[in-house]
């Protein structure tokens, strides 16, 4: 991170590092990176007030490409690191990012309990329904009959795809939205709103893997802006999400739970805690 002028106004470019992404040409994650940096700039944040934490996978390389504090952590554990960071440094804007395999398989349990805990951070999952970095295995969000890769079992996994938005709602996430990498400006607006919203904000961004799921190029014709207003009623949100076909973009749920940690105060001085560990 190279910038810390608190009086400056930063542009999206200021939030991009000099490291060039190694993503495949045409990868949707390029646009997601642009949306994230645009959201930071639109919110008037400064690089030294911002952090990006990730796990492992193609999309999880994103901390290297942002000029903020960052932590490229371990597989599936980005949310654990991100929550710890936010609780230790509540002044930082914490954005946790990764892919569908990292977030919903290896990190599936962290995802559920991060929704429950409701720490004030934003979790972005770049969902391409495949493990791209390891050459095309089905992920938790892959269609059950997808077998267009030698890395998939014949006939597909036969497993019902994970429904991250519905699971996030059931587990207690305070803000739920879906974006599309083919709409970078709309996605930047959603990310900015997610960051502003208190508590755990979950944004699933459909981001095509044009190498292992070439048919996802067609998403630009199937993704649509949702015609409905976001609801604050979790029962209504549940009905909507359970009938959702996965192509509606926009903010789908805005909750009103208090963020974890707001009401918590230290019950002992650090020196008292130290004393307990004295040998």
């Amino acid at each position, binding site marked *: 991170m190279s910038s810390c002028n608190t009086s400056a106004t930063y542009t999206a470019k200021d939030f991009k590092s000099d490291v060039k992404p190694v993503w495949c040409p045409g990868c949707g994650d390029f646009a997601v990176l642009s949306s994230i940096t645009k959201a930071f700039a639109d919110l008037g944040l400064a690089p030294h007030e911002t952090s990006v934490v990730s796990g492992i996978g193609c999309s999880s390389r994103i901390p290297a490409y942002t000029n903020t504090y960052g932590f490229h952590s371990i597989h599936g554990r980005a949310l654990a690191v991100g929550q710890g960071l936010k609780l230790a440094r509540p002044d930082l804007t914490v954005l946790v990012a990764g892919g569908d395999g990292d977030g919903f398989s290896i990190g599936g349990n962290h995802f559920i309990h991060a929704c429950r805990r409701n720490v004030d951070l934003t979790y972005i999952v770049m969902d391409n329904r495949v493990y791209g970095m390891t050459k095309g295995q089905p992920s938790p969000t892959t269609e059950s009959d997808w077998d267009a890769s*030698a890395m998939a079992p014949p006939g597909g996994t036969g497993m019902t795809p994970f429904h991250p938005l519905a699971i996030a709602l059931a587990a207690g996430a305070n803000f739920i939205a879906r974006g599309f990498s*083919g709409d970078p400006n709309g996605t930047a607006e959603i990310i900015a709103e997610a960051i502003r919203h208190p508590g755990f904000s979950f944004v699933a961004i459909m981001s095509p893997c044009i190498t292992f799921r070439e048919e996802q190029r067609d998403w630009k014709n199937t993704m649509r802006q949702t015609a409905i207003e976001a609801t604050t009623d979790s029962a209504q949100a549940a009905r909507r999400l359970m009938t959702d076909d996965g192509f509606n973009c926009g903010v789908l749920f805005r909750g009103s739970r208090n963020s974890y940690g707001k009401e918590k105060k230290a019950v002992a001085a650090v020196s008292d805690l130290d004393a307990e560990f004295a040998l």
Partner: protein
Amino acid sequence: MNKTPDFGAVHTSAELLTIVRLMEEGAAERYRELAEAFETSCNLDTAAAFRELAEGEDRHAAEFPALAGPAPRVTPWGEEDPEIADPDAVHYLMHPWHVFELALRNEEKTLSFFEALAVQSPHAEVKAEAVRLAERERGHVDHVKRRMAELPVPPDDWDEDDDPPNWEAGD
């Protein structure tokens, strides 16, 4: 995700020129990003073609006054800026000829937008500016066509890879 263009969203010539500068800067940034992606994947001829386009868009942007204040929030073309290349409209084996074919599509979309704005804008000042911008854009279209004509047309099997990243089941 297309939104309907709002031809009345821009009220003055100055506002339009600011937006056009942003369009050109956005196009340059996208082409530069694609150049870097192709450099990373070692398709250097294609990377050079994208870099040439990025430098061209930089020159186009410099023809307009620098921003004196905050950029207008309006996007009269709807959500998709016609000048900016679709980030997934590329293939890792594409040739420089394809790069200019992609650029031609974008320049033609931009030309169509200015032509439509010249007819449909409710503001006389904007209409007149759009006519000038359309004329300028015709020059860009002609330039890209000339560059395409100078390049070898790729063979039919240009996207065949002997060692593909993703082989079909049973291969």
